């Protein structure tokens, strides 16, 4: 699932990533813009996604991602992988991984590399 959380109104990057994952043969649920963490986690649970990709360009990642992580924990979605993407300062990457993000994919990552990293993450996880 590719999700846009919060007030950030730009989803061209999220759409490019969704499209490239589709072209890599994956089923990609796209949520559309301006979703709340509650909506995104509820949707990800219903869709039983392998990877929840949250795209943030607004700089609000340190506020919104902890909420997403907390809601995933409450929903017992422990085997779902959280990937954060978008405009993230380098120094925030370890902060986000410490919070529970399985990977942080920065804005300059080529689309093929995104698909490869998603595949590696899922392959490394327990089969469900």
């Amino acid at each position, binding site marked *: 699932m590719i999700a846009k959380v919060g007030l950030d109104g730009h989803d061209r990057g999220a759409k490019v990533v969704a499209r490239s994952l589709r*072209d890599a043969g994956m*089923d990609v*649920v796209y949520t*559309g813009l301006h979703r709340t963490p509650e909506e995104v986690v*509820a949707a990800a*649970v219903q869709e039983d996604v392998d990877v929840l990709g949250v795209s943030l360009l607004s700089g609000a990642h340190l506020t919104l991602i902890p909420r997403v992580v907390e809601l995933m924990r409450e*929903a017992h979605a422990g085997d779902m992988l959280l990937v954060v993407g978008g405009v993230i300062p380098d120094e925030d990457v370890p902060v986000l991984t410490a919070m529970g993000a399985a990977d942080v994919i920065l804005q300059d990552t080529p689309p093929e590399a995104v698909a490869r990293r998603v595949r590696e993450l899922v392959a490394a996880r327990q089969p469900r």
Partner: protein
Amino acid sequence: MTDDVDALARQVVEGSPRATARALTWVESGGPRAEALAARLYRHTGRAHVVGITGAPGSGKSTLARALARVARGRGRTVGILAVDPSSPFSGGAILGDRIRMNDLALDPGVFIRSMATRGALGGLCRAAADAIDVLDAAGRSLILVETVGVGQDEVDVMRVAHTVVVVSVPGLGDDVQALKAGILEIADLHVVNKADREGADRTIAELRAMLTLMPLVEETWMPPVLGVSAAREEGIEAMADALEGHLAYMKTSGEADRRRRRMVAARVLRIAQDLVAATLLRPDALEAQGSEATTLLDRVLRREVTPHAYARALLTRMGERTPDV
């Protein structure tokens, strides 16, 4: 495996959203695990009203499903939505975007939405649709909306899984000759003309009604209503929900419900049998795997001593001899 399957089936029947989601993943993935789960859930099914929503791409099926779910929630129903979107014929991947129109339903525990891709199935649904509907039914959803991919004129699989079929039309897509043609318009139990606030809606409604008057009139059969609605403005949706309930009531009193359920189950058994035959026979090594006799037969076909048709028929007969009793 048995313990896992039993536990998951129990949690689905208890209505757990997380278990329901995982069960849907299993049936979508297929295989022995999916079959074992479906077997445990089957006796808990048959309670839901399954409504199919089909129509052209962009006709507003997702928006209509959302509006209808809201009305149904107001009437105390719990709702399951299965939304199907197309897979890419090139990569096999899919963008599942039906949820975009339904986001505000996500926080209502009385609504469960699941997206699935067609993965090569051609009839407007995905292969696992019937099993997925069973999961939602067993999980206690009393109304299940099945939204097909955007269809053209000939994708009618939805009639094999839904008790009530809604065909969504929009103004401006063709004249009354289009409406005369066979195909999806024929399978409607309810015609909905969406975007009825737009120009030409009255004409589309009139043409659909005119088409219906050309059908042979049989005493006490269901005459599909034609309703104008605006899904985005949530106008006409109460009347639509009434019409759906009316159709269900008609089906029960007329005995059509039993006849239709019987047809649906028969179609499902045949579809599963087809898939099983395909899975057994269509492996690239299916003939070689049958041993030396098969190879010899293949040689005889090559030498023009046996026809391909006769060999194919012999293969099926042999498969029939190996079928276990149920």
